[in-house]
């Protein structure tokens, strides 16, 4: 049931049965019996150098997944096998003392460049902090490394930015600093959670280009979390579509866009506005708004909104992933009939 990576090499990240439940508190002394199934048993792999897009609407669990991969959240259940050279571990169960070593290999870029940076610290402080935490180099060496990275992310001349504060930078420049901070430890894997959604279109493209170029040059893999499918098209080799804690479809980006096989993916794609008034979209009707992930019924998560629901969907648990094409998988019983 696990979707294999397109490349036959050993995957960098291999996620199996990953789960995160948040208990809903109903009073101080009661044991919670209701849970938000934020991430509800998902599997995926990311090959070295690959960029996997995780798309879906708000509340589908995509950010929770990203946070678990960098250990900002602990998984309730499941495995995250991380293979970086001779470092091969299931980091879902890594102990607190070992977490530091793992964190030198993975990084995260956050959505909001205005909030992810300490306003009282200079660019040098922000970018060199991971080096200080991991006790890498002397202060002059760190300064050199920070200058190198600022140049790499296009903040030139780097000397001019070293001792600036976040309020002296524009949104695009801040996001460049965030990228420099994420790359300073030479990570193999970066989780980018909507890194461009707060930026204006013109600035967005240069940040997207920068991230792609650096990934190619430094061999970094991304988990690219976004709600914007048009952005995902340019940033990701493969796309995984999430709905209510489940991955419902995964496949190569252009294949998913051209030939979506899950009813939810089809609805999602048909709702994306197109920047060309000559093109009229074909509407795909789905029912209602997004459901809640509190103690969901065992059937397919999409059952209440799906226009193709049949008996098979009512009588069976949430479907496994079926192979529907080269590296293309979908979790739908009726995919061949729609």
């Amino acid at each position, binding site marked *: 049931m696990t979707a294999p990576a397109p490349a036959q090499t050993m995957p960098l990240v291999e996620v199996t049965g990953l789960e995160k439940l948040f208990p809903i508190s109903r009073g101080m002394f009661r044991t919670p019996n209701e849970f938000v199934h934020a991430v509800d048993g998902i599997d995926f792999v990311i090959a070295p150098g690959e960029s996997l897009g995780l798309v879906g*609407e*708000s509340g589908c669990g995509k950010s929770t997944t990203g946070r678990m991969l960098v250990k900002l959240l602990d998984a309730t259940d499941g495995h995250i096998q991380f293979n970086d050279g001779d470092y091969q571990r299931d980091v879902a169960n890594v102990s607190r003392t070992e977490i530091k070593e793992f964190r030198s290999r993975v990084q995260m870029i956050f959505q909001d460049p205005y909030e992810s940076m300490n306003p009282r610290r200079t660019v040098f402080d922000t970018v060199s902090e991971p080096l200080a935490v991991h006790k890498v180099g002397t202060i002059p060496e760190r300064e050199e490394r920070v200058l190198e990275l600022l140049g790499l992310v296009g903040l030139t001349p780097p000397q001019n930015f070293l001792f600036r504060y976040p309020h002296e930078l*524009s949104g*695009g420049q801040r996001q460049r600093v965030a990228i420099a901070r994420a790359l300073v430890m030479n990570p193999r894997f970066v989780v980018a959670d909507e890194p461009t959604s707060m930026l*204006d*279109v*013109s*600035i*967005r*493209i*240069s940040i*997207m*280009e920068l991230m792609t170029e650096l990934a190619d040059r430094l061999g970094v893999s991304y988990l690219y979390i976004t*709600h914007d*499918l*048009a*952005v995902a*098209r*340019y940033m990701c080799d493969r796309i995984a579509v999430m709905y209510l804690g489940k991955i419902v479809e995964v496949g190569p980006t*252009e294949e998913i*866009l051209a030939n979506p096989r899950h009813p939810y993916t089809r*609805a*999602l*794609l*048909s*709702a*994306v*506005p*197109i*920047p*060309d*008034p*000559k*093109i009229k979209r074909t509407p795909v009707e*789905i029912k209602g*708004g*997004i459901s809640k992930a509190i103690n969901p019924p065992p059937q397919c998560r999409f059952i209440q909104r799906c226009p193709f629901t049949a008996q098979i969907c009512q009588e069976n648990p949430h479907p496994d992933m079926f192979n529907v094409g080269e590296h293309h998988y979908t979790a739908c019983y009726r995919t061949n009939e729609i």
Partner: protein
Amino acid sequence: MGLSLEGLQTRRVDPGRPLLEVEGLVMHYRIKAGDVSAVDDVSFVVHQGEAVGLVGESGCGKTSTALALLRLLPANAEYLSGEVRLNGEDLLQLSEEGMRERRWKDIAMVFQGAMNSWNPVYRVGDQIREVLDTHFRGQLDIDTQTGHIERLFTAVGLPPEMVDRYPHEFSGGMRQRAVIAMALACSPELIIADEPTTALDVIVQDQILKELKRIQTELGMSILYISHDIAVIAEVTDSLGVMYAGKLVEYGPTSEVFSRPRHPYAYLLLRSTPSITGPRRRLAPLEGEPPDLLNPPSGCRFHPRCPFASEQCVVEEPPLAEIFDGHRVACWNYEKVPELEMELVR
């Protein structure tokens, strides 16, 4: 969806007739460091039944323009010149009382994040009732009001029994629908919708935009959309204006501007917009940052970032001149702007 616009006032539209005429609007914000030239000589017309879009990046003056039309600007804003005529009457000359009578009744607004502005301790229906009370004091009894509000709810795709619910019982999309219901309450001729769907998920956005389109065409209303989202503007508007640094740099029929943008900024904006359909075009980034409006650049405000700039652009400001019927561009070198090329990647 079985929406019904039954019982709501329908207008007969005279398509060529101007409804809102904005002419030479200049507005500054006074701050300690000086004057921020936020809206500088903006002119456009919204015709009856027309959907017009203003598009641009943050800080380009599109929201300031909307607020200026409604006279909802903060105290440090100053109108320097211009006229805003609604059916021939200059709104900027009205008394505060006169302006208050026009809001909601003649021009309604749907603001960015308005869905979060509901008062949490009042029922949503009662908050819409306030608008009716203000404009039809004593003319409508409570049952007529309730009936009307229920019809408004139906029109925007909300179950009519929701009128008695509190805002926390609505999802984000439902709250935004309720904002649109409130905007429709007094059957205005014009709705100003500033980023009406920006915080919403794409499927909900699509549903709400479709309903706005339906309401606009079937009730004969005009809508002024303000958005940073070029794809949304492409789909919902008939005409569009592109704003940059407080200036309207291009204005014309949406289909024409999109197929052949003539202003370098509009051209680059379209080239940097990703799409999920069609071949994968190479996206072109726009170099540099928008200018500081305390000290806008000399000549054309776009010249420091413009790949087509000439010496004239540095010293002389280009007027917004009509180059084709209804298509206006503020650029000395618009003829140099090439056709949108389709350079493919991989």
